[in-house]
């Protein structure tokens, strides 16, 4: 599953293909020419020191950030950021994003809606799905993330871990082609991290295509098909999880991973 060098794609198996993607804020360039290919069902984990541009790159994929240069293909839709005409706007942009699920560090649930309404919000508001149909989907997903008994709770009545699981269900309710996870466990108390990672592992097992930005090296080791190491806005090394995490070649990867060795070294359960 990790033959990342193959660029021919007759079966339409490439879900995301970024090439030479750049993002700058004024004179600061946060992403400096990142290329990445993600295939259907693949779990790609992005690691690297804080501020290396991995979150910005992730936000470029669903155009929460507008890249300054490069090309991006999600599904069959390709965008060349050199020409402003190919950048989607308005409803077109909304449709582009609707196919991509995203989960954030701070959960960002809608506080005026119950857990159930949060999960229904995408299908009802974006897809104009009938309430009953959306509710059935939402109940099933909340059950799947272990919150079947919490459907009527408001976000403020839930723990951080529970809120993040609702946020995952909310993103999944749109039946996205790919899921983006942006440091989704970083804001959680340590004892709540496990329940969120378990849900993500389950999604990976179900064949969900995922790009995960995380500092959880044990998760990367156990779940990732492909690990990408970023530093200073660039990809410094990428490859199969075992290879990158256990035998890194690039000195910057080695120095970054040295902080995590106790976690990575643990044997798989």
């Amino acid at each position, binding site marked *: 599953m990790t033959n990342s060098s193959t660029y021919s794609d007759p079966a339409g198996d490439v879900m995301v293909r970024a090439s030479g993607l750049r993002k700058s804020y004024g004179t600061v360039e946060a992403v400096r020419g990142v290329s990445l290919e993600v295939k259907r069902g693949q779990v790609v984990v992005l690691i690297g020191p804080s501020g290396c541009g991995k979150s910005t790159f992730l936000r470029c994929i*669903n155009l*929460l950030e507008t890249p300054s240069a490069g090309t991006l293909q999600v599904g069959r839709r390709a965008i060349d950021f050199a020409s402003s005409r190919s950048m989607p706007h*308005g*409803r077109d942009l*909304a*449709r*582009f*994003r*609707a*196919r*991509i*699920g*995203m989960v*954030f560090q*701070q*959960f*960002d*649930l*809608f*506080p*005026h809606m119950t857990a159930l309404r949060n999960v229904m*919000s*995408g299908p009802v*508001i*974006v897809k104009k799905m009938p309430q009953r149909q959306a509710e059935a989907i939402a109940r099933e997903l909340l059950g799947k993330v272990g919150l079947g008994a919490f459907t009527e709770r408001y976000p403020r009545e839930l723990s951080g871990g529970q809120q993040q699981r609702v*946020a995952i269900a*909310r*993103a999944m309710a*749109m039946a996205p082609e790919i899921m983006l996870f942006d440091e989704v466990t970083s804001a959680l108390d340590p004892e709540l991290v496990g329940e969120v990672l378990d849900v993500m592992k389950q999604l990976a097992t179900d064949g969900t295509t995922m790009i995960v930005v995380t500092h959880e090296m044990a998760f990367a080791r156990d779940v990732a098909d492909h690990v990408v190491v970023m530093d200073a806005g660039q990809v410094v090394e990428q490859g199969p999880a075992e290879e990158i995490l256990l035998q890194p070649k690039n000195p910057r990867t080695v120095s970054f991973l040295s902080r995590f060795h106790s976690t990575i070294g643990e044997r798989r359960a």
Partner: protein
Amino acid sequence: MAYKWDFGAVYAYLNLWLKGLGVTLGYSLGTVLGGLVIGVACGMLLLYRRRWVTLPIHYYVEIFRCTPLLVQIVWFYYALPIVLSVELPAWLAAGLGLTLYMGAFSTEIFRGGIISIDKGQWQAARALGMTNAELMRHIILPQAIKRMVPPFVNQSIIQLKNTSLLYVVAVPDLMYTGSVVVADTFRPLEVYTSVAAIYFAILYPLTLYAARLEARVDQ
């Protein structure tokens, strides 16, 4: 010699008082509603972030916030008809000033309510695929309106008090009625005490209501 209070003289003008009260309430309601419409429109336009849209609104708001309302009313009454070279009836000229004043504050309240909503709410809604209209209607406004209501009610209370300034351009509101009755009866003590009492009777319950609203939003 002790002053002999005689509120009978005040009561004798009941009809006039009722008319004055009607004018005060009418102006309050009218200018608050007009100001609300202006506030929502300008507040929405401010979200476009195009300089040629936001800059005029910004100056409109600041001009009305940074000049005394009394000056505005007098200016609208005496100067505006000359500037526009049209005859404006007194009630309209004065009302226009009050409405634009309320509009300026409402714009700020509306804008403040919208930008008080966490950035994460916008990005979460966008990530789900909502258009700007959808995320405004379903995610941002339901939360923002709750926060806008208390300051808007407070501003409306101030606005009701401000209508007393209409007195200077001879609009027959409560305050002006007071001056008419004083001229007739030479009883300023009773008359202006009554005027104050009427304002208080209307505004005190409203401030209690506003305080309750605020407490509810803080929950």
